[in-house]
């Protein structure tokens, strides 16, 4: 037994030497991806993973990322955060300390991105969240950036749109108090709506996992509201809209939503019930420029589905990183120095042209970029562009 053990150890030691002596290819950069592969919103995780892989393949196919005259191949390390805050933080810790990634891309939903961003900031590893719109993701966290716009802007756009478009003064909100993104959206909407001179007549909530909204919807119907804001994700929206239709809520009340609605699955789950509703989002496919169209076409050929904005934003996050690496100038091989250099490179980006629009980060790491309002047409299976709103504040 002992002899076998010794033999095994010798073999292991030899194999270790063998790998150490193997000829090294071009140097590798490890990029960590923290995605919602399982849990309530698996479409988001899949889109994030697909787009990150596509961008990495593109960069590698072009010979790799050139930094300071040296070529580097990108290697992705993908971790599943199960759409749980604690798993997102654990995945971030693992990616940074164990896998030793140079940069952390993800997480996407704000409830996961906020704990992950605290870990990244603590361990001083740059992070780009593709899809998290909550202010707390980047607030007082110099190491954290995002590829999307910020919630206070998005909810403000929604309040203004709801008021002007439907000539309304009475607003209502129905949102999940258990989810960071939804919670802040609900309050931001209320604040802006009231600041613009309107009145919030129903401010209704539920908690994550609830399926029955009839009590709240009946209350909203009774309140005399003209616009109902539903800042929820695509897996809950169909339930809410269908119950609203059944209760006759939608006869008088216009339902509007936020970017969590955007997913090819929305129409699959909601069908004709969602037709004609509006929501704000990161891009509108039908007015997209050449670069975006090329991305959409390539993504569709590769994965067989239309990309949603998570895919576009993750793709942009990867190229934001590439741009930051170029801004950085050179990599030393010392992880701490290189991570700092990439962080500074991200902060130095100006007017970056991505597939989801032109973006410049603020001091806080938030992107200044425009928001699009789209109208749902599930019969045709598309979200049609309706309006674009340029960046501004609603303070």
């Amino acid at each position, binding site marked *: 037994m002992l002899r076998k053990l010794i033999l095994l150890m010798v073999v292991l030691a030899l194999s270790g030497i063998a790998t150490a002596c193997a000829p090294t290819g071009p140097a590798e950069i490890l990029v960590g991806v923290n995605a919602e*592969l*399982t*849990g*309530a919103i*698996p*479409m988001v995780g899949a889109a994030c993973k697909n787009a990150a892989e596509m961008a990495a393949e593109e960069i590698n196919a072009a010979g790799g990322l050139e930094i300071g005259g040296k070529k580097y191949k990108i290697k992705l390390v993908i971790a599943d955060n199960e759409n749980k805050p604690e798993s997102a933080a654990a995945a971030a810790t693992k990616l940074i300390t164990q896998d030793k990634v140079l940069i952390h891309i993800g997480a996407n939903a704000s409830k996961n991105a906020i704990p992950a961003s605290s870990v990244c900031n603590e361990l001083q590893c740059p992070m780009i969240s593709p899809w998290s719109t909550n202010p707390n993701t980047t607030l007082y966290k110099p190491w954290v950036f995002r590829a999307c716009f910020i919630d206070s802007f998005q909810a403000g756009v929604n309040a203004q749109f709801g008021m002007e478009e439907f000539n309304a003064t009475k607003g209502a909100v129905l949102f999940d*108090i258990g989810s960071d993104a939804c919670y802040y959206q609900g309050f931001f909407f209320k604040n802006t709506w009231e600041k613009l001179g309107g009145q919030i007549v129903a*401010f*209704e*909530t*539920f*908690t994550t*996992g609830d*399926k*029955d909204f*009839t*009590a*709240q919807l*009946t*209350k909203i*119907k*009774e309140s005399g509201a003209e616009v109902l804001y539903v800042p929820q994700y695509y*897996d809950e929206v*169909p*339930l809410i809209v*269908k*119950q609203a*239709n*059944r*209760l*006759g809520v939608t006869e008088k009340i216009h339902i509007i939503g936020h970017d969590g609605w955007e997913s090819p*699955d929305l129409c*699959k*789950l*909601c*069908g004709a019930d969602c037709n004609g509703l509006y929501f704000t989002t990161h891009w509108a496919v039908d007015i997209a420029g050449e670069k975006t169209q090329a991305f959409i076409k390539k993504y569709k050929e590769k994965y067989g589905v239309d990309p949603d904005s998570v895919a576009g934003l993750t793709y942009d996050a990867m190229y934001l990183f590439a741009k930051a690496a170029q801004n950085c100038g050179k990599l030393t091989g010392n992880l701490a120095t290189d991570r700092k250099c990439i962080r500074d490179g991200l902060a130095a980006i100006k007017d970056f042209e991505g597939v989801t629009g032109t973006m410049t980060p603020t001091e806080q790491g938030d992107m200044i970029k425009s928001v699009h309002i789209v109208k749902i047409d599930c019969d045709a299976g598309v979200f049609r562009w309706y309006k674009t709103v340029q960046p501004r504040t609603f303070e």
Partner: protein
Amino acid sequence: MTYVLQQLINAIQLGSIYALIALGYSMVYGVLRFINFAHGDIFMVGAFLSYFAALLIRRLAGSAGIPNALIFLGSMLLAMLGTALVALSIEKIAYRPLRKYRLSVVITALGMGVFLEHMTLVIVGPWRISFQPLISEKVHKVAGVSISTTQLVIIFVSILLMLILEFIVRQTKQGMAMRAISYDREAVPLMGVNVDHIVTLTFAIASCLAAAGGLLYAHAYPIIEPYMGIMVGWKAFISAVVGGIGVIRGAMLGGYILGFVEIAAGAIFPSRMRDLISFVVLMLVLLAKPTGIFGLPLRQKV
């Protein structure tokens, strides 16, 4: 007034589904003195099986123009059959060998629940599935109150099933044996009743009700996923305890009470306090009557 009526209908709809599932907890407890914590996940299996059964029937029927009502009935029966088979094999593999060890069998029940969830996750994947309704939806307006066909069917079918169950338990020999076992487990085998048969029958009926509950739930909330049974299972379990676990009428009443309390708490108080208030009410009920509303005081045998 219309507002109150509307909320009342919402409550009856929710309560009917809770009651159907609560019956499963209550019946199994009555016969075996054990809480089948996998029952919520059996309900989930029922929802998925009825989804696949409806797909199958639609495909087989092709363009034969079978009315939706028949597809509804057919998929309900198929789902009941499939769910009963699942529940019976669970009972045989995991519960029967452990029947003497009351604590262990609760643990295996919890384990079976997790097993069913992840089994479904592996088979269908994490994607949300949209349940295509088998009822042609129409919203009826009665004095300002909106009642949809779906709601009517849910309420009607669940009350019908409960009446059938009442009949089985009250009027048949097997039902009498069930009641006898729940009254005195030691004496019943002496009367020549095969306890195993009755246990099997109880599990079969309980899972049939869960399957029907799954189908109806999927019509009310038409998105199904592998974890949908957890919360509903807990709430049905609570309903059963509040009504008096082991008593069939108690489970029915408990389901409706929970439905009413949840809707009323959301309708009267700010909705963020809904769960807080509804569960405080339930705790108060239990403080006043620890064995549940229809529950009998515990008999201690000396």
